[in-house]
């Protein structure tokens, strides 16, 4: 009788079947071509889930995301498909030792699932240290002294660089006690698209949905914050940066439950940002520095939809013509 169902990987890469999204796996000339990457499955709720499995069979998935992220099978352009519930603090390899352009896909049954929360109050759910990884489809749940996703840029080690990260279609839920949704240490070429940041609220009122913190190498440069929703947070986006774009976001200053102190701040004393493009956003409430909107001296804040038409920087038609003062 076989008691250990989790065999070591005996098959060779050339015999992988075609897998959508994996370059080279379509094997147009039969099984003679080897795919350039693998798909690994993680499902904590699966009866046969085990970190002793190789993870390439979705009926014998890995039990933890960390096992997939640390897998020796993981190569550039690999895909990690995640189901179940994630309760762990995952650290990716650095950009020298680990693969680049890996995708971690939430494949649960609803819009934002599975949920993913760190198992430690002071550690991020996902600590990103490699180049070009993509995260999609999760419901991240906050912790009281950490971010859901922390983007490293040499602050934790010289080779910890998460430039070109893509985070899309995720919900960042602060649960009214969480610290940060996304915490960037200055990575450039980051794309944050169609995400929701809500309920980042704590006793100190210094919680924040999108935050740029300690930045030893640089503050964020050429980042793209597009189509995101910020509501019911102590602070929506405190994100000093250079040459970034904020397009199509919705900032609700007075939310259903909480009012934001800072809605969008692209320049912070001691960490000044500049030359950002802020356009086509919905910016409700007091469109002023005192009201929580603040930009660099050479930022362009035009064509934003504002209800504060009393400000000189907002036209009578509600479109902004200048950065707030």
């Amino acid at each position, binding site marked *: 009788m076989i008691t250990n169902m989790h065999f070591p990987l005996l098959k060779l890469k050339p015999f992988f079947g075609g897998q959508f999204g994996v370059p080279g796996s379509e094997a147009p000339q039969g099984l003679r071509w080897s795919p350039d990457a693998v798909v690994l499955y993680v499902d904590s709720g699966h009866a046969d889930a085990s970190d002793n499995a190789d993870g390439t069979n979705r009926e014998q998935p890995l039990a933890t995301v960390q096992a997939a992220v640390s897998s020796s099978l993981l190569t550039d352009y690999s895909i990690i498909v995640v189901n179940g519930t994630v309760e762990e603090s995952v650290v990716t390899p650095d950009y020298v030792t680990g693969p680049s352009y890996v995708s971690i896909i939430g494949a649960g049954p609803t819009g934002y699932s599975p949920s993913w929360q760190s198992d430690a109050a002071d550690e991020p759910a996902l600590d990103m240290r490699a180049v070009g990884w993509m995260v999609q489809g999760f419901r991240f749940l906050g912790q009281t002294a950490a971010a859901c996703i922390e983007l490293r840029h040499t602050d934790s080690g010289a080779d910890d660089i998460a430039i070109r990260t893509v985070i899309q279609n995720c919900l960042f839920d602060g649960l009214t006690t969480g610290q940060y949704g996304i915490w960037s240490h200055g990575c450039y070429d980051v794309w944050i698209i169609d995400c929701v940041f809500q309920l980042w609220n704590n006793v100190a009122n210094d919680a924040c949905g999108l935050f740029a913190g300690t930045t030893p*190498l640089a503050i964020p440069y050429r980042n793209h914050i597009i189509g995101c929703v910020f509501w019911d947070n102590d602070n929506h986006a405190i994100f000093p940066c250079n040459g970034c774009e904020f397009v199509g976001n919705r900032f609700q200053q007075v939310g259903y439950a909480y009012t934001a102190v800072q809605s969008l701040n692209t320049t912070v004393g001691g960490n000044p940002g500049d030359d950002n493009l802020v356009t086509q956003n919905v910016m409700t409430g007091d469109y002023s520095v005192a009201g929580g909107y603040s930009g660099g001296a050479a930022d362009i804040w035009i064509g934003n939809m504002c209800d504060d038409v009393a400000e000189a920087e907002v036209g009578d038609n509600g479109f902004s013509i200048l950065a707030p003062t």
Partner: protein
Amino acid sequence: MSKFDDKINALEQASSISDLLALVPEVRKAATSKAKKKLAEHKIYEATERIVGP
């Protein structure tokens, strides 16, 4: 050649992120105008991009 230009040249010669991290404070200190500060930040970006690769 000015001290700023020297530092920018050093940035362009850096071969590791550790080298870059050591140079960054010196470059920023040598950047005495707003234009030089912006150029310095862009050169740090270019150097990182070159070292990390595609």
